[in-house]
């Protein structure tokens, strides 16, 4: 049992899960179907909840359990179900039409990951052996990469709903950064952020629904009336 709870082992588990999160993000960027995309996001959030839980256990940060449970309930379960219902209701199952095609997108994501590692390198303080900084090195790199790939996805996608998904995965990168750098924010801030994310998804979903109704399409690149 003692063997199991040693931080060294925990570190490996956490880093491995973080790598999986990154792989999912890149897979999501090269992905063509909306429903699959929603599920990728759900699985990614589930893994994030796992990471938060693992950090809470291995590094003795019990308040992270609350963040883990909230992530599980909100981002891994509620939001994907809600978005899939929305997709059903507005009856779109067609492909995402990215501006840049899938293979090139994946290559670009690889490049962004590299940038993420370079940025994270400047935060690496080897003299600090305990505390978040020791854990943070790889995790922060993954978090920055998620963030950058999220940006790229927003630019690369034309339909309203997929932009929302990209924004959400960008938010996931942020969450990873908070739990890896500082073992999460103070609880009340964490709650506020979750509340805002939930509300933002709702607001954006209503907008998506109305855009679909009005434009007969979700292609936001067709919205070009307002200029100058």
């Amino acid at each position, binding site marked *: 049992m003692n063997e199991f709870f040693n931080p060294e082992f925990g570190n490996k588990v956490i880093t491995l899960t973080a790598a999986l999160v990154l792989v999912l993000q890149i897979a999501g960027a090269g992905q063509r179907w909306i429903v699959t995309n929603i599920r990728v996001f759900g699985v990614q959030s589930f893994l994030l909840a796992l990471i938060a839980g693992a950090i809470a256990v291995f590094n003795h940060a019990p308040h992270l359990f609350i963040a883990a449970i909230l992530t599980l309930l909100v981002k891994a379960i509620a939001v994907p179900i809600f978005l899939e219902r929305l997709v059903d209701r507005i009856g779109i199952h067609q492909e995402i039409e990215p501006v840049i095609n899938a293979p090139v997108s994946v290559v670009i994501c690889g490049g962004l990951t590299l940038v993420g590692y370079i*940025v994270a390198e*400047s*935060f690496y303080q080897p003299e*600090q052996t305990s*505390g*978040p900084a020791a854990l943070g090195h790889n995790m922060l790199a993954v978090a920055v990469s998620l*963030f950058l790939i999220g*940006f790229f996805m*927003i630019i690369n996608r034309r339909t*309203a709903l997929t*932009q929302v998904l990209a*924004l959400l995965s*960008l*938010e996931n990168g*942020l969450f990873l*950064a*908070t739990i890896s*750098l*500082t073992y999460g*924010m*103070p*609880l*009340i*801030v964490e709650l*506020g*952020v979750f*509340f*805002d994310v939930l*509300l*933002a998804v709702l*607001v*954006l979903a209503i*907008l998506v629904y*109305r*855009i679909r109704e*009005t*434009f007969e399409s979700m292609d*936001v690149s067709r*919205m070009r*009336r*307002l200029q*100058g």
Partner: protein
Amino acid sequence: MILILLLLAPLLTASLSYAVRRRPAMEAVNLAGFGATFLLALLLGRQVLNRGAVSLWQGFLYADHLSALVILLTASVALICSVYAVGYMREDERSGALALGANGRSTHFKLRKYYTLTPLFIFALLLVTVSNNLGVLWVAIEATTLASVFLVTFYGKVTSLEAAWKYAILGGVGLSMALFGTVLTYYSGHHLAGSDTLAGLNWSVLASHAGQLDKTTMRLAFILALLGYGTKAGLAPMHTWKPDAYSEAPVPAAAILSTAMLNCALYGLVRFYILASRCLGPDFPGGLLLTFGALSMGISVPFVLVQRNFRRLLAYHTIDHAGIMVTALGVGGPLASLALMLHMIFHTIAKALLFLCAGNVYQHFQTDLFRKIKGGLIRVMPITGAVFLMAILAIIGMPPFSLFQSEFLILRAALTNGHWLSSALFVLFGAGVFAGALIHVGSLVLGAGDEPRPAAWHPWRHASMLALAAILVVIGFWLPAPLFELVRGAARVVTGG
């Protein structure tokens, strides 16, 4: 205690507005609620002047001179706009604008939406200014976006949806950067003792040991916060949502967006600037701010010059003024900080007034295109036309009005500190905006129109407009002593000491 009351007033207004269903009751609730908010803001200002910073719950809520000033401005704009909104919404109901795109829902539904969302929006704006915790500050700024998105889609037109989408997505992306900046700020103080608690993210705590924060992290944090809150303030090149949102929202809401919300976004920037300049010295954040300021002023010039729509003209003007205020912040030092606070007051008054005038014109002609109105406003609507012209002269910085003073002070501070390039660009872009705005509004108000169809006197809309116009004139010559004390206090918060 007063801080809680200040937050409760708009929140209560929103829930009461939602509960009472009749229009006169909603109007009364809104007027009373914003009246109370304004009185509380005055009280808070007095308390801060007498006793210094007010705080509550171990510093969770906190208001110093800077907060009190921004709160006072927010509350004043909210009050004036709520008076104006009564007349504006009644006119919309009469002319049938509310029935457009209502999808069979009654126009009453829309009234209720307006009178509920506006107090919520004001609540979020007030929360921004009283929260000491940088995380809560972020939550509140995100909440301002969420509360105002449906004010932008208010008329349900195709273009309003487009504007709202841009607003929501750009706001979301921008604010996610600001959140990253907030997280990094938290991390930058994480090696210090006692930073693991809620207070570790409190601005006043971070500011007190800003010198010990980790410098690399703080640098990145400031860049991200600048990009994030800069998006919310509409700094170029993240400004594209602004003209759309301002021209689609109902006019009283647009007035709040372009004054109170701009102030709150700048408030967030100022807080981060203080942390960054105490940690890294003023040169790094100052240089970035000057760059964004010059870019914002520059980008608004061509759009003001060729503008066809007067509400979009006002929006580009707001981008210009956001640039001016950011420049003042970037110059730094006591004089520029004082000028920044003065400019914030003067811009808030003048820009709110301009939106109210534009609303009157829009509702009379049912268009916001210069081409369709042709000119001669002064004969059709003598009062609104005259005030419109006066307000535009004020905002482009004509000497008798107060904005001339503050812009002149900013320029003087920039020259004294040796920012030659910024000063030169400031003058150049100022001249461009001056010419553009004057030509457009001049020909709108004075030109030869073809239909002398005199407009009627609308008590709610005209009274609120004239009151604001009177304030604008008076404040050009006489700034009340307590207000000036508050301004000086706010400037001291920025410079420290």
